[in-house]
């Protein structure tokens, strides 16, 4: 019989990251996603030049490389 299990078991684990980008010097910081984050929201101060960073991307990445 054609099993439908194989489809489900291949599921990969993903972790969601938030990228904060400094609009002045372009420095990008990657950290784990926190509830309430959204793209264009103000992030922390830039560690390089002290300017206000902005969340530019939020994406999911595989935690373990697929076999």
């Amino acid at each position, binding site marked *: 019989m054609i099993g439908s299990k194989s489809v489900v078991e291949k599921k990969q684990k993903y972790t969601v990251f938030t990228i904060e980008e400094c609009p002045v010097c372009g420095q990008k910081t990657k950290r784990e996603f926190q509830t309430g984050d959204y*793209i264009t929201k103000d992030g922390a101060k830039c560690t390089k030049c002290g300017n206000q960073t902005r969340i530019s991307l939020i994406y999911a990445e595989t935690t373990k490389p697929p076999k």
Partner: protein
Amino acid sequence: MPVDIDPNGIVGKIDHVVTTRDDRVRQEVGTIVGDKNPVTVSVSENLLEAATALNTIHKIVRHFYLLGKKTNSYFMLVQLQMLMPMIIQEADALVSAVDTFKLAQPLGDGIGAVIASRFMVGREKQTIARDTVLAVNEYKGRKLYVVKAEGPMAYVGQPGVGIRHVIEEMGVKPSAIIMIDAALKLEGEKTGEIAEGVGAAIGGIGVEKYQIEEVAAKHKIPIYAVLVKQSILEAITAMRKEIAEASDKVMTLLNRVIEEKTKEGDNVLIAGIGNTLGVSQ
């Protein structure tokens, strides 16, 4: 759904029915959730939609299973068995979508909104249709009218009504409409691959696509499309890295399209299509 024996004017009727339904769902969900936060309400609306879709799948599968048993139809059961992997895949995508919605993370489908938001940051925004906002920006002497659904709520907005509003009510004469959207990839195609084409790039039941084509044809405005490929699962779950990283390439392509297809002093209408959950402007 409206009667379609006489199809003349049916899009308007479908639009009317769908808008009434959406209003009703939003109002009822708002009452049940009892939260004034528009993000929470919009997320709950989407969760309800996912639950409804799962329930429909369950009911249809059960119907054919029981009907096959009742009528002793081995073939009906075999057909159902053969379709099960695909059905499970779709149901699985819906279940995964629930987690993304609950956390209000941007979806793969939100790539159009991400691109549009880059042009809108720090600009003055105005509402031009239900859940739809417009901002004006400039690029190499062109005036850009950028449209997207209002984020970070889980809205898709009404880009059809919005585009018509810009052209007919605001009197803007764009020399091109450029639409950015997620597109369903075929098996074997790579996630995050970019495709360029012409025509209104928008899914759904067809109302928005019709409205955009109508207004574009009437005013003879060419429509260009930039698409980012992804699977159905990727479109309704947290945006994958491959899709997010395509955004820089999309920006480059978009700038090239603007430079090639329009002249300095022209107006260009850019529409970022898709669910804008977790993507503000």
